[in-house]
């Protein structure tokens, strides 16, 4: 199971890298969103997927519980990811309104005006 999830995370990173390298701002933002989900899968795999009972008091018989910490980390990180994605989408929209382009090449600004 761990192997499968690791491969899935790898696929997500590949997709995200492809999107990040494109020129459109929206694609880049979607790329960062996918990237963060790859990181979440990674955290889950690192904590070990399912090895025991649910981590509730009085839940399990054998005394072996799943590590609950990665779930807590992922939850926090998803919330942060939402916030950042929402903010960057608004930012991209405003930039599009103001500059009339969503092409990163045209947003470079080499001349320091």
């Amino acid at each position, binding site marked *: 199971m761990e192997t499968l999830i690791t491969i899935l995370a790898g696929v997500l990173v590949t997709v995200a890298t492809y999107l990040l390298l494109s020129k459109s701002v929206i694609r880049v933002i979607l790329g960062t969103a996918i990237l963060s989900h790859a990181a979440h899968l990674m955290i889950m795999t690192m904590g070990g997927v399912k090895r025991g009972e649910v981590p509730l008091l009085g839940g399990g018989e054998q005394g072996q519980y799943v590590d609950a*910490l990665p779930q807590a980390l992922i939850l926090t990180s998803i919330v942060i990811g939402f916030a950042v994605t929402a903010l960057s989408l608004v930012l991209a929209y405003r930039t599009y309104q103001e500059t009339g382009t969503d092409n990163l090449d045209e947003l470079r600004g080499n001349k320091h005006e």
Partner: protein
Amino acid sequence: MNNLLVLPMALPVLAGIILIFFRNHIKLQRGISLVVMLSNIGIAIYLLNQIQEKGILRLDFGGWEPPFGILFVADSFSVILVLIASFVAAICLLYAFSSIGKAYENMLFYSFVNFLIAGVNGSFLTGDLFNLYVNFEVMLLASYVLVAMGGKRIQLRESIKYVVTNVLSSWFFLIAIAYLYGSVGTLNMAHISERIAESGQTPLLTGISMVFLTVFALKSGLFLYFWLPGSYSVPQTAVAALFGALLTKVGIYAIIRVFTLFFYHEPDFTHTIIGVLAGLTLIGGSIGAVAFKDIRQIVSYNVVISVGFILVGLAAGTQAALEGSIYYLLHDMIVKALLFLLAGTMIKVAGSARIDEMSGLIRNYPLFGWLFFIVMISLAGIPPLSGFIGKVLIGQGAVETGSYLLLALAFLSSIVVLYSLLRIFLNCFWGETMISFEDEVPMKMGWIIPCVLLTAATLGLGLGAESLAPYVSDAANTLLNPKIYIDAILHDN
């Protein structure tokens, strides 16, 4: 156990939320923000003295004892930084009162400054690696808004790059945390340190340390500083000063913390890489600082140079060098804020940001001109001012460890700093004045008073280094002996 510890983060968060409901009461917003910053200064001073008496303080949230719960830890290093950060933030707020404009103030400017400070203070105080990530994000989200606030073309353009760069580096941070959690099975910083000491720093852990270094290098502008000059030169003066003073310093704090507390077992490898990166940063920053004619660019590249300089101290890694790094960190927070405020004011009174388009400002604004002179010699490290002691101690540490190349680069970069600022001084302040007395922009008291206060602070830090010495040497001592930190967290019940 000391509940005061949470206040430097909790007060700004609460104030920031409350201020949202008083959007149109600007006086109230200003008052509350300033009171929050001032009370943080008071709390930090009290905590510093407590630490001297009782050793490292900690606050376990909800009574969950480490390593199980999350916690805040206050050692001298973090509390000194909280103190100076709150001080600089208070001064930048004072400057913002008379410069930022009503439109910004109605757009919740003060709320976001409060959130920014909450993130900065939280990053300094946390004793848990994942909390460090969360606090970084709190700080960064506020900074994204502050860069873009105003909505000018160039601001939006730079903020897109700033946001994407930082999202990527946050992703690396998450990955690094995941790897570290997978290999040592804990997130409590003291516990991580203990586990790494038990297992020895295996090549795997050294590899993870390099991921951490990448993350913090991106955040602090160590070598990976390509995003920095753009995004620090577009926001309003008060915001740019806050950024220049605080944001990169949080990254530096994280590098120093991680490489003195966790990954200190293989200094031949890790600290050499930090040294190389610091040297490259010094070179790159120096080239940038002399290459541009735009004041904002020159000032931003000066931030880059100081990042390299502080980390030379970490690369040397002796007691003297770390003390020097801490002194220089404190000095740099104050002086960079001052430099950004002065540069912003210059642009405001001269109406241009290019140094060949202004001249003779000192005739119109004598006090202002001399303030710039003081900040220049303070950055160059002339003795009575605050830069001197940090430079001497870092130099001493570099000599002790025999890293003469770094030493040479560090001190050559000081000359470049002096040259780049002298160029501004000679071009903009000397010569024939270009502003006639009729169309002179009146220098507001609200612009000059914060600068005077910061200048007094750099003088005070230089002359009063003696009174700060016990705290700084305690901080360096704790950094060099991780056992003190671990014992205070894990074995002290």
